[in-house]
């Protein structure tokens, strides 16, 4: 940690080395910067959205060491020495992830604003529970809100993705 002086006031920065979407990155951030601002403003990855900004809606969901967190309410320095995955890191080049394919095939999005968060939350869910029941999906995804779809097709997409991934496709 470094403390420098700006306008006579001590200003602290934290060196944050992280693996962002598989790539080693280093950022120097003040303690009060959020992970969401680091991702969108410093890394230029705008797939992660800012909406409610109070960890309720889920559009800012990113995976920190594989676990879903609200980037809007996570301080950026918490990513130090950890892996961060955003929606930009889900596809493998041009090859979409089975979860992404399922969302396309089953109509799991309309405007698409909530979709990055939905997909990342789904990845975390299926890693923890590869064959969830519909109730388990609904419970896990409770914190990801959608204004467009009415949720049914999101549920269908997730269950289809689970089946595709379990089938080894």
């Amino acid at each position: 940690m470094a403390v420098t002086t700006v306008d006579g006031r001590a200003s602290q920065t934290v060196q944050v080395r992280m693996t962002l979407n598989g790539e080693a990155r280093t950022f120097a951030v003040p303690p009060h910067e959020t992970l969401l601002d680091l991702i969108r403003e410093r890394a230029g990855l705008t797939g992660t959205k800012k909406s409610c900004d109070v960890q309720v809606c889920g559009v800012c969901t990113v995976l920190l060491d594989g676990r879903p967190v609200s980037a809007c309410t996570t301080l950026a320095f918490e990513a130090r020495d950890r892996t961060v995955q955003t929606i930009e890191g889900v596809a493998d080049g041009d090859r979409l992830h089975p979860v992404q394919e399922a969302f396309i095939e089953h109509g799991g999005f309309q405007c698409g604003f909530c979709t990055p968060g939905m997909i990342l939350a789904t990845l975390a869910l299926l890693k923890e529970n590869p064959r969830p029941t519909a109730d388990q999906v609904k419970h896990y995804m409770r914190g990801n809100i959608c204004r467009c779809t009415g949720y049914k097709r999101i549920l269908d997409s997730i269950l289809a993705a689970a089946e595709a991934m379990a089938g080894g496709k």
Partner: protein
Amino acid sequence: MLKPFELCEPTTVAEASGLLARYGEEARIYAGGTELILAMKMGLLHYDHLVNIKGIAGLGGVRFDAGANALRIGGAATHREIERSPAVRERFPAIAEMETHVANVRVREAGTIGGNLCFAEPHADPGTLFQVYDAQVTLEKAGGKRALPLEKLFVGSFEVALEGDEVLSEVTIPALPPRMAAAYLKFGILERPSVGVAVAVGLNGGGVSDARIAVGCVGPVPRRMREAEAMLVGKSLAEAEALLPTAGETAGRASQAVSDLHGSAEYKEHIVKVLIGRAFRAAAQQLA
């Protein structure tokens, strides 16, 4: 937008305690940040120094202490760790169930039990259920530690009996005695629960040997409802069940329900009454 603050990262409780003592009201403990960062972002609170306790060894973890027959949860343990702990799921199923339904999965991944209890937001779950287990908390500082019944931790809404330089290092939850079971029910349509009711019932030879009732969310603090409990203890199961509405009304009145966006006081008192009846039956049914 968060205002700048200094990040302090102690590696021992003594060091954390020293920082808190040194900075006084300008410092606060920071763990998961799910309440604190939110309040700071909204401009409701500000601290010039945040004391990150996540680097202190021994503050996390969930384990069952067979010798003490109690669950020992580190202050920095997250809701998800508690929710997923095999010891909790096996021996304290009501606690696992309650933790599973706290907020949403992202909050549960980051938020800690110590933070939840010490922030003392009235619309929360754990403080209510833990009280029917006669839970205790360990408060530690540079000079030593003290144990406090959880009931005594909650002083008012967002106010706890924590000294300025203390860290909540552990929540100790004794196992319920044999022939006793607990249930937690909550109600609400907003992001945070509007009513939370915990009941633990002990049945022996067809009679209620023990009844513990806690109500949270509706008033400034979660509390045991001892007057309502006394109405049920010593009665036969049938008598107790017939008395549930009256006990529920007694508890509703004692809960200090406030009228707010979550509902009027009368409405909340009514929901308290309904949930006490349901939670009692749910607990008793586990013993059938």
